[in-house]
């Protein structure tokens, strides 16, 4: 048991390992992925039916409805992020792991984005067609969702970590995450609306990208700290 012949897990191996485990779990329980996706598709598909066939109104409300639906769908998927790990004791095992908790938290957030954010981005063009969105605008919508959902996954992991020890912390989770998610919602939907009105998208996309990078760089540390506190 000397230090030299020990096969220590590297940081990258830890990151990939935990992300792969969560993806495998999602693959074995596809319902967890499909639920938020189904919610997103339902809201976006029912809205045009309720508003009526007026093309003008649909084009006007499309970006806002799609973005609100995406935000709520992400929130819906967040509650389970750490809950099952907390309940079956895996979280305790991660807390006493040699691999830093920050790395494990980042790996879990990446897996969460791949199973909840990315599917939303991929189905959004289909859903956007029901709002008579032109293809050029759909491209921008996908870009804003791509950047926005990364931020939402990372921000959400902080909220999920803070509320993991509380029973029925769903409402609290939304309260923690929503204020931080507001810039994403505002810039996401307004960028799409501006492009639809003939303006440029660069400003909004730059902001969303900057916000994603900012959140990506501090959220794993905050998540790890929150996990330690809520698991005491």
């Amino acid at each position: 048991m000397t230090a030299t012949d020990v096969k220590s897990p590297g940081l990258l191996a830890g990151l990939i390992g935990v992300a792969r485990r969560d993806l495998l779990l999602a693959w074995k329980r596809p319902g967890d992925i499909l639920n938020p996706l189904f919610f997103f598709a339902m809201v976006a598909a029912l809205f045009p039916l309720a508003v009526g066939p007026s093309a003008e109104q649909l084009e006007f409300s499309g970006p806002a409805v799609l973005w609100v639906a995406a935000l709520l769908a992400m929130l819906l998927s967040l509650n389970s992020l750490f809950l099952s790990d907390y309940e079956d004791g895996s979280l305790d095992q991660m807390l006493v792991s040699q691999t830093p908790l920050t790395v494990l938290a980042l790996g879990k957030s990446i897996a969460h984005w791949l199973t909840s954010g990315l599917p939303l981005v991929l189905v959004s063009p289909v859903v956007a067609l029901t709002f008579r969105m032109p293809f050029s605008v759909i491209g921008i919508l996908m870009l804003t969702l791509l950047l926005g959902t990364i931020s939402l996954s990372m921000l959400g992991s902080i909220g999920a970590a803070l509320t993991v020890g509380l029973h029925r912390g769903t409402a609290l989770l939304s309260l923690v995450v929503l204020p931080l998610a507001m810039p994403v919602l505002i810039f996401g939907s307004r960028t799409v609306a501006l492009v639809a009105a003939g303006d440029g998208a660069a400003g909004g996309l730059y902001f969303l990208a900057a916000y994603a990078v900012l959140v990506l760089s501090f959220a794993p540390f905050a998540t790890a700290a929150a996990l330690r506190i809520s698991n005491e």
Partner: protein
Amino acid sequence: MLSGTDLSLLRGDCCLFTDLSFALNSGELLLLEGRNGSGKTSLMRALAGLIEFESGDLHWDGVAVRKNRQAFHASLVWMAHRVGFKADLTLVENLNFEAVLRPQSDVDFDALLDRLGISRLQRLPMRSLSAGQQRRVALARMSLADSPLWMMDEPFTNLDREGRALVMKLVDEHLGDGGMCIMAVHQDVEVDKTVQRIQL
């Protein structure tokens, strides 16, 4: 070597213990004994670094644990009440994930599963295993880890007589290899190694 000096722990406004000191050397077993609810698990969690001691210092190899938590966690493998396996993954997938968490020894995987009597269950999802079988997988995690310090919280729970004997045999071998073990129990344990006891 793991040593604690003047440790004390509060849970809520109730003081579990004060001025607890111990020193655990390689090859030694530390038994935490006490009634249900006397704070064995809390002490175990505090030793593992999941909760903070109210006061006192914990040292691993002469370095304060709070200063080098990563080195401490690399030398530690923990068997808790909840086994910490994913119910939807198979036994092998669960044990493979261990390599992400801590250094692994070069123990023969198949021989170990054989010895623990769980080699037939390799391809089954964890949820279809009985509680005792899941504890046996948790024992496999201990042996697979290349960690000198074993922490076991009520390791005999759910195990049959043969399983309980196996736990003692594994611990015995681990201590013989120069390892250390901290065990929380509420029944008598027979070992021929150096035993320290903390009565809570």
